[in-house]
C-alpha cells in the first residue's frame, strides 16, 4: 500500500459501499440515509449507493458498472448474510478489474434490522458499527486467489484386506494404476469368517490382484511419509530395508481392524479357553475334537461395552451351529448381552432359528453382571429368570472386540486424520459431509474407521472406489479457501505449525543457515488459521482473516463512540460455521439480542488468537464471547478443541493477573441455536453488569463495579 505524501498515512483504497434495502426489510428498520451519510465519511469511501435488491440481476449489473466507472478497489455490500450472498456478489464482479476477494458483505439485516426493530437510534448505531467494522477489515484485506492443481491418475491403497483388495481391483478395472501396500508379509484375513465365505472371497480377490497388470502389490511395506497435495501425493514407503517413493493422485486407507488378543492379564487355561479366531482355526483344521460342553461368550471383553464390533455375534452363532452339526451330542450354550444380527443384504435371523432348532441354549446376561469363568464352570445371572446359572464347560470361546490395526495411529499422524475415542480413524464431519475427510484426496473406509461385516465391507469398498474414481477423473482441482502464507524472513522453524495443521499442509524444510523453514502446500491448506495462532513469531499470514485485519476490526468494533455512555461492551468472536450462523438464525427469528454485543465473523474457532482476545480487553471490551462449533462438528476437524484448550490456559493466566476469568467465555453452538446465542449473550451481559471480581482497573474504566 502506497503512503500518502501529505499525511504519511497509508493510502486508502477507493472503496464503494452498496446499501441493500432488502425491499423494506432493512430500509424499513434502519434509516439508510443516515447510514449512508455516516459511511461516506469513512476513510477511503468514494461511492455510496442505495438499492432495493442489489442481489437482483439488475443490481448486479449496476454494481459491475459502478466498479468499472468509479474504478473501485474495494466494495462493501451492507445487506444480509455473507454466508448467503458473498459468493454471488463476488461472481458478479468476476469480469471487472476488482479482485473478487476485495468484496465483502456486512450483515446489517440479521444483526441489526431484524432483531432491533423498536429502537431506531440504537439500530442505526449498531448498523453503523457493523459497516465500519467491515470497512476496517476491507482496508487491510488481502484477496485469496483460487489455486488449481493437476490430478495424477493413480491411486495408493493402504491395507490388503478384503476391502483394500476390492477397492484396488475396482479402480484398476477402470484403468487407474494402483499401488497396494500391506504391512504383513502374508495375507492375514481373519480366519473366523470362514463360514460366510469371506476368506475364500479374499483369496480369490488376492489372486486377481496379483495377476492384474494395473496393480502393484507391495508386501512388508510401511508408509513413512506423505508429501504433496490432493491429486498429486508423494508417498515414501519403506519396503523391507529400502525406501521407495510412489507418486499418486489419491490415497485410500483400508487397513483392517484386528481382533484384540487375549492379553497376558488373563489367567485362563488356554487349551480350553479360546478366542473366536483360534477356535475357527481349530474347526478349520478338521481334526476330531473332543467337545462335550461348549460355551460361547459374546461381548466377552469389557471394552465391548463401549463399541460394538458388529461381526462377532454372527460369527459366534455360525460357530455354534457348526459345532452342533459336527458334534450333535455336545451341549452348546451361547451367553449374550445383545445380539447384533443384521447386515446389508441379508439377515442372520435364519441362523438364529437354525441354532434354536438344533438345540443350542441361549442365556442373556446383564451388563452389570458379566459371566464369571471358573475352573470347570461358568457362572452367570440369567437376565430372564434372574436366577444364577452354573454351566459346566470343557471349551469356552470368547468373542474379542475388534480394535484398530496397529498402524492406525501412525496413519493418522501421517495423513492428518483425526482419531475417535476408540482409536479408529474418525470422520471429522459426519453431519456436514459424511464420508469426506479434510483432505479431498484421501479416503478412509471399513475397519480403519469402524468394524464392519463383510457385506458392509464390500459395500464400502465399492462406494469408496466410485468416490475415488470420481475424484481422479477430473483434470484439475480448484481450491478457493484462504491459504496461509509464511514469511520466510521471520520463520524460526520451531515446528509448531506442522503439529497442529489438520490437513498436514505444513512441512518443515531445510534451507540455508541453521534453522528450518515451514512451507505451506497451497492446495492442501483449508485456511483454518490454526498455524497462525501457534506461530510464536506470527510469521504466518492468512489473507481474509489476517493478523492485521482482525485487530483493526476489533478496535473499530469496540470504539467508545458507538456505545451509549456506561453501556457494557461485549465482543463475540463467532465461527462462521456455527456461532455466526446461530446469530443469523436469531436474526431471522427476530430474537432480540443485547445492543452491546459486537459480532465478528471468524473462519474457525481455531483462529481465536489469545493475543486478539487480550487486544479486545485492552480496547475496552468488558467481556469476550467465543462461539465455536460443538465438539465433533468442527468444519476443520478439531479447531474447537484447540480453542477450548487455549481458553483454559488463558483463563488461568487471567486469574493469575487478577482479572476475573469469567470475562472470557467459550460456548459451543450449532447453526440452528439462535435462541441459545441470544440467551447466552443476555446472560453474559447480565453477569458482567452485576459485577466481576477484578483486581485493579480494567481498560473499560469507571463504570465497572470493582470488587476485591
Amino acid at each position, binding site marked *: 500500500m502506497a503512503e500518502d505524501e501529505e499525511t504519511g*498515512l497509508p493510502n486508502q483504497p477507493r472503496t464503494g459501499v452498496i446499501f441493500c434495502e432488502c425491499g423494506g426489510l432493512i430500509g424499513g428498520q434502519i434509516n439508510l440515509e443516515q447510514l449512508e451519510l455516516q459511511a461516506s465519511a469513512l*476513510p477511503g469511501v468514494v461511492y455510496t449507493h442505495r438499492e432495493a435488491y442489489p442481489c437482483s440481476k439488475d443490481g448486479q449489473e449496476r454494481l459491475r458498472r459502478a466498479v468499472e466507472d468509479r474504478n473501485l478497489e474495494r466494495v462493501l455490500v451492507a445487506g444480509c448474510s455473507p454466508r448467503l450472498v458473498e459468493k454471488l456478489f463476488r461472481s458478479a464482479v468476476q469480469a471487472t478489474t476488482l479482485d473478487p476477494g476485495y468484496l465483502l458483505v456486512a450483515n446489517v439485516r440479521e444483526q441489526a434490522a431484524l432483531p432491533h426493530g423498536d429502537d431506531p437510534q440504537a439500530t442505526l448505531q449498531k448498523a453503523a458499527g457493523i459497516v465500519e467494522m467491515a470497512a476496517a477489515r476491507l482496508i*487491510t484485506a488481502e484477496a485469496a486467489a483460487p489455486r488449481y492443481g493437476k490430478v495424477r491418475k493413480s491411486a495408493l491403497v493402504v491395507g490388503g484386506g478384503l476391502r483394500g483388495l476390492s477397492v484396488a481391483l475396482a479402480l484398476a478395472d477402470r484403468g487407474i494404476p494402483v499401488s497396494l501396500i500391506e*504391512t504383513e508379509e502374508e495375507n492375514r484375513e481373519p480366519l473366523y469368517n470362514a463360514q460366510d465365505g469371506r476368506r475364500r472371497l479374499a483369496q480369490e480377490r488376492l489372486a486377481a490382484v496379483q495377476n492384474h497388470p494395473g496393480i502393484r502389490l507391495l508386501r512388508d511395506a*510401511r*508408509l*513413512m*511419509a506423505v508429501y504433496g497435495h490432493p491429486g498429486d501425493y508423494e508417498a515414501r514407503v*519403506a519396503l523391507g*530395508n529400502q525406501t521407495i517413493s510412489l507418486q499418486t493422485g489419491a490415497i485410500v486407507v483400508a487397513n483392517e481392524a484386528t481382533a484384540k488378543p487375549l492379553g497376558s492379564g488373563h489367567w485362563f487355561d488356554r487349551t480350553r479357553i479360546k478366542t473366536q479366531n483360534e477356535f475357527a482355526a481349530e474347526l478349520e483344521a478338521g481334526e476330531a475334537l473332543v467337545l462335550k460342553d461348549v460355551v460361547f461368550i459374546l461381548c466377552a471383553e469389557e471394552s465391548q461395552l463401549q463399541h460394538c464390533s458388529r461381526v462377532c455375534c454372527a460369527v459366534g452363532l455360525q460357530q455354534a451351529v457348526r459345532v452342533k452339526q459336527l458334534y450333535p451330542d455336545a451341549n452348546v450354550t451361547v451367553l449374550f448381552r445383545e445380539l447384533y444380527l443384521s447386515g446389508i443384504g441379508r439377515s442372520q435371523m435364519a441362523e438364529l432359528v437354525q441354532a434354536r432348532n438344533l438345540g443350542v441354549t441361549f442365556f442373556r446376561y446383564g451388563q452389570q453382571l458379566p459371566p464369571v469363568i471358573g475352573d470347570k464352570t461358568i457362572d452367570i445371572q440369567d437376565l430372564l429368570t434372574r436366577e444364577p446359572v452354573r454351566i459346566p464347560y470343557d471349551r469356552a470361546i470368547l468373542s474379542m472386540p475388534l480394535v484398530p490395526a*496397529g*498402524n492406525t495411529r*501412525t496413519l493418522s*499422524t*501421517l495423513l492428518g486424520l483425526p482419531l475417535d475415542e476408540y482409536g479408529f480413524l474418525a470422520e471429522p464431519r459426519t453431519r456436514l459431509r459424511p464420508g469426506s475427510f479434510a483432505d479431498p484426496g484421501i479416503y478412509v473406509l471399513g475397519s480403519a474407521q469402524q468394524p464392519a461385516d463383510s457385506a458392509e465391507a464390500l459395500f464400502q469398498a465399492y462406494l469408496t472406489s466410485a468416490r475415488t474414481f470420481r475424484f481422479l477423473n477430473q483434470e484439475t482441482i480448484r481450491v478457493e479457501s484462504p491459504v496461509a502464507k509464511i514469511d520466510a*524472513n*521471520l520463520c*524460526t*522453524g*520451531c*515446528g*509448531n505449525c*506442522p*503439529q497442529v495443521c489438520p490437513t498436514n499442509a505444513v*512441512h518443515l524444510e531445510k534451507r*540455508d*543457515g*541453521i*534453522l*528450518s523453514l515451514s512451507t505451506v502446500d497451497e492446495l492442501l491448506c483449508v485456511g483454518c488459521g490454526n498455524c497462525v495462532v501457534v506461530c*510464536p*513469531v*506470527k*510469521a504466518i499470514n492468512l489473507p481474509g482473516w489476517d*493478523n492485521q485485519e482482525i*485487530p*483493526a476490526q476489533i*478496535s*473499530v468494533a469496540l*470504539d*467508545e463512540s458507538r456505545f451509549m455512555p456506561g453501556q457494557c461492551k461485549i465482543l463475540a468472536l463467532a465461527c462462521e460455521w456455527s456461532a455466526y450462523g446461530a446469530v443469523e438464525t436469531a436474526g431471522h427469528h427476530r430474537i432480540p439480542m443485547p445492543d452491546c454485543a459486537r459480532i465478528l465473523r471468524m473462519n474457525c474457532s481455531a483462529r481465536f488468537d*489469545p*493475543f486478539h482476545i*487480550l*487486544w479486545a*480487553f*485492552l480496547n475496552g471490551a468488558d467481556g469476550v464471547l467465543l462461539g465455536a462449533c460443538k465438539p465433533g462438528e468442527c468444519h476443520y476437524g478439531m479447531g474447537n478443541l484447540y480453542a477450548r484448550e487455549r481458553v483454559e*490456559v488463558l483463563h*488461568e*493466566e*487471567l486469574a*493469575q*493477573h*487478577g*482479572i476475573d476469568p469469567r470475562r472470557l467465555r467459550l460456548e459451543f453452538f450449532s447453526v440452528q441455536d439462535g435462541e441459545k446465542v441470544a440467551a447466552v449473550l443476555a446472560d453474559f451481559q447480565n453477569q458482567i453488569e452485576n459485577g466481576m471480581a477484578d*483486581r*485493579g*482497573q*480494567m*481498560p473499560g474504566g469507571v463504570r465497572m463495579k470493582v470488587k476485591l
Partner: protein
Amino acid sequence: MVKRLETEVWNLENCSGCGMCVAACSKQVLGWNGESHPVVQSRTKTLGLSKTTLDSCTFCRKFCEEVCPRLEHWMPIEAESIQAVRARGPVFSGSPNDVIRAVVSAGRSAGLLDGVIMLDLERWSLKPVARIATTVEQIVDTVGPQYLWAPLFDVLNEAVFEHKMQNIAVIGTPCTAQAVRKLRASANPLLKPYQDAIRLSVAVFCTGVYRPEMIEEVLVKRMGVARDQVRRMEISPDRQWLQVTLWDSSVRTIQRQQAESFTRAGCGKCDDFLGESADLAVGSLGAPAEASTLISRSQAGAIFTRNAVQLGLLETSPEVDRQALEAAASEKDRRERAQAFKDLEILMLDGLVDPKKRSDAIQQFIRLYRTPVRPGAVETTPRGCTGC
C-alpha cells in the same frame, strides 16, 4: 520461591528442561512428573488431627531462580578461537560428539577432570538418560548428546555430593551451558559447591531437541524397527538424517525434518544456536567435510583444547567458514521476535489491570502486529498517563 519460574518460564512453555533448578533446589521439592517442566511437590504435615500443607518454597533463597537459564538473556561470550578440528583418538572422526569425547577424555587422562556429566541412550529402552562418566572408557562408551531431551543435571548432586567430584565437565546443549553460566554468576554462597566443581561446560550446536516419544513414533511405528534391533542411534553430522544402526550392522535413515514436529516447546524461543555461553562449543556448521567447528570461549576452553592437542587426540586447522557461523548467529533475530511476543503477552495481561502499562502494551502490540490505526483512535491515553 518457585513462583517466578512458574509464571515466567513454565507457563509460557519456555522451560529448557535442563534440570538445574531440580538439582539446586535446597528443599528438594522440585521434581519431574511426566511434564515437560519440573513440578513442585506439595508436602503435608500431620499435626494432631489436622493436616497442613507445607509451603516449602516461601523461605527459600530462590536457588531455582538463580540457576534457571531461561530467566536471563545473555550476551554471547566473545570467541577466543575458532578452529576446525578432527578427533585422532579414541577414534578417527570429525563428528562433533567424537571431538567432544576426544577433548574430555584427554582432560580425564591428564587429570584435569575426574568426571563428566553427559547424556546417554539407555541401551534397552533407547531412552535418553543423564550419566556420570568417570573413566576414559566410560566417556568413550557414552553416546553423548543426540538431540533427545532428558534433564542433564539430574545427576549433578550425585556427582558433587556422593562421588565428591571436584572437577566436572558438563556436556550438553547451549541451554545447559547457559545454566552453568548462570550458576557461576550467582552470589549465593550455598551454590558454591556446584560452582567450584564444574570446571568446563561444553555445548553442541543446537536448534532444538526432541521429546523422547519421537523414537517410538518415528523409529518403531514408521520405520518398523523394534527397539531391541537397535545398536546405536545418531543424528548424522550434518544434522540432515536420523541414522539407526542395527545389530546386523545395516543402517536405516530417515530425514530429520520428519522428526521436527517432536521438538520440545521450550526450544522455540531459544536463540543460542552456537553455544554462546559455553567454554567450548562444537558443531559441524562451518566446518569442512569430516571435521567439526570448535569454538573456545574461555580460558578453561583453551586449556582443554591445548591439552587434547598435546596428547595427540585432536588435530586442528584454521579453515572455518566464518560466514556460515555469522549467518547462523544473525538468525537470532527471528527467535528474539518469538521472545518479544511472549513478553507482549505478559505486558498485555499486566496492562489490563495496571493503567500505567496500558499504553505501552497497546503500542507494543501495534508495533509487533503492524496493526493499522486510524489517527486518534488509540492515543486516548497519552504516554505517562496513570489513568487515575
